[in-house]
């Protein structure tokens, strides 16, 4: 949490904080060292002054000690009154007996016996103790003792602390101003870059550029960023150009497609209209001859006229079949939920009505849901069932089955019959236009039906294939593309 709070601080605030903390620590450390040094040196100065003083007083009192005149020694000691910090002073003879003494007014007498003498001077409870041997003719004849408070040192420290505090305050006031001013030269370009980055990502405007202020790392960062922006801009315009070209190409292709579709439509229209008219004439005039000249025509002539009529009718069927096939390719395509079982039942009803005398057992699965174009899938199913109906004609009791199975995640529908079947060697030709596996004499047909079924299955993105054997029936399998799965799970 805390580190996150620091991380979220602005760069400028971070720089200021760093400068403040570092310079504050440096200042405090420096001041502490200075204070320690000053205290030590002032202590040393004072101590050496008292030592000198002790040496002088020792000299001045040696004669009084030698001649046993304590008054004279006390007179000398009394001159210490000028030194306000000297608390007490005393002269002891060689045996350690108090000889003469000085007490600052208000101080208590603790000088009866000489204090221990570990060195020439030492500090004790913040006080300075100085010991000076008194000598005469190379012989020690006594000791001078001086005790002083260290109020001077304390005063020194106080003054120093006050002065340093004032300096610290002054510098402390200056540092934020300085760090703010200096820090801005570092943080401002970064902040500016950040705002440009934000603007670019928010508005997707790759034409803006960050302004460079210097050739430092930030400057290079800005250069790199601007360079990237230029690259993105260049790529964007390249993509836009490519898209334009593609769109244009799509438009051209669409126009071409529309044109060829239009052509195909015109062609189909012509076929539908113009190819039928001559057939009508052939059929019509043959019929007129049969009706009006029946007496003049022999049987052979009548037979040939009938042949002409049948041929023209068959050609009309072929034309209609081709037109249906063409219509499947260009008709609209829209998937919907359909039940093939329901469609099949309708188709079978029509077939039964056409051949009421036939005995055909129909095994249609109770429900065969699919997601397909209802009109097209009905046409396909109709073709397959009609074929099954047709090729089982020679069976006294025929059986036609319609069902589905799941294979590898897709639904495979099938139409199975036990009719004439065909030789699997010819399956290649099965779905072509016109090639037939049975002669017209055996089973009538146009040879377009299975091509139509295949076209319908292909428009659904599905596959169609067949299994058969001669006189053992045929099974046609088909799928209706990937979308059928959705309708099954729905």
């Amino acid at each position: 949490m805390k580190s996150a709070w620091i991380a979220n601080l602005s760069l400028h605030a971070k720089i200021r904080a760093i400068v403040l903390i570092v310079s504050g620590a440096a200042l405090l450390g420096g001041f502490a060292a200075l204070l320690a040094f000053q205290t030590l040196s002032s202590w040393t100065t004072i101590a050496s002054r008292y030592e000198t003083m002790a040496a002088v007083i020792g000299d001045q009192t040696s004669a009084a000690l030698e001649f046993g005149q304590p008054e004279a020694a006390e007179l000398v000691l009394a001159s210490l009154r000028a030194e306000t910090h000297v608390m007490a002073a005393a002269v002891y003879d060689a045996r350690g007996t108090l000889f003469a003494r000085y007490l600052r007014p208000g101080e208590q007498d603790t000088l009866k016996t000489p204090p221990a003498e570990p060195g020439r001077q030492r500090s004790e409870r913040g006080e300075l103790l100085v010991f000076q041997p008194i000598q005469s003719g190379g012989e020690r004849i006594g000791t001078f003792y001086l005790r002083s408070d260290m109020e001077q040192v304390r005063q020194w420290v106080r003054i120093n602390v006050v002065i340093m505090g004032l300096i610290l305050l002054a510098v402390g006031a200056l540092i934020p101003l300085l760090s703010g001013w200096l820090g801005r030269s570092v943080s401002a370009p970064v902040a500016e870059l950040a705002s440009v980055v934000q603007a670019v990502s928010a508005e997707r405007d790759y034409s803006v550029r960050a302004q460079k202020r210097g050739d430092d790392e930030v400057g290079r960062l800005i250069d790199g960023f601007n360079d990237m922006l230029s690259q993105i801009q260049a790529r964007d315009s390249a993509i836009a150009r490519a898209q334009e070209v593609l769109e244009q190409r799509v438009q051209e292709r669409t126009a071409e497609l529309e044109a060829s579709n239009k052509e195909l439509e015109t062609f189909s229209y012509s076929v539908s209209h113009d190819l039928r008219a001559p057939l009508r004439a052939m059929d019509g005039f043959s019929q007129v001859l049969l009706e009006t000249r029946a007496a003049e025509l022999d049987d052979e002539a009548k037979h040939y006229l009938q042949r002409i009529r049948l041929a023209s009718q068959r050609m009309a069927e072929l034309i209609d079949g081709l037109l249906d096939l063409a219509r499947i390719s260009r008709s609209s395509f829209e998937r919907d939920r359909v039940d093939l079982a329901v469609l099949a039942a309708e188709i079978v009803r029509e077939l039964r009505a056409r051949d009421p005398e036939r005995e055909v057992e129909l095994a249609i699965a109770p429900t065969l849901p699919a997601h397909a174009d209802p009109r097209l899938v009905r046409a396909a199913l109709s073709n397959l069932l009609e074929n099954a109906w047709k090729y089982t004609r020679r069976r006294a009791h025929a059986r036609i089955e319609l069902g589905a199975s799941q294979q590898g995640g897709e639904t495979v529908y099938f139409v199975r019959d036990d009719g004439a079947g065909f030789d699997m060697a010819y399956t290649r030709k099965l779905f072509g236009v016109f090639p037939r596996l049975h002669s017209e004499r055996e089973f009538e047909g146009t040879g377009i039906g299975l091509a139509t079924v295949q076209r319908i299955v292909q428009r659904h993105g599905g596959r169609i294939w067949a299994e058969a054997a001669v006189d053992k029936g045929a099974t046609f399998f088909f799928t209706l593309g990937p979308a059928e799965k959705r309708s099954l799970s729905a």
Partner: protein
Amino acid sequence: MTHKFILVVEDNPDDEELTVRALKSANVANSVVVARDGAEALDFLFATGAHAGRDVAALPAVVLLDLKLPKLDGIEVLQHIRSDERTKLLPVVILTSSKEQEDVVASYRLGTNSYVRKPVHFKEFSEAVRQLGLYWFLLNESPPAC
């Protein structure tokens, strides 16, 4: 009321002959007028061009109109007939080879009274034409001339 007749608009001579023959068997053949393209049909109906001077008020009982015609096609002829006050109510039957969905839709949208596809089989064809002739010529009551 002048002489009652049927206008057949047909460019194919075979179809024309078969149509007329079928109408003959329905006993309306004597009253058939044939126009061989769309322009001629309009000339006849509005008494212009080659038919100038014809009595415009003498309209056929029904027009049997083919769709695929030279010059003006059947759809355009139907459009002209329906947009003119004089022929707005004239019964028009489209008699064509086409079973294209758009032709059927366009014809009905423009106000044809009927749409019949010519069967290839002559017996069916002559029966269809015969029935059309009977119905429109004899049975149907024509709209009053306006």
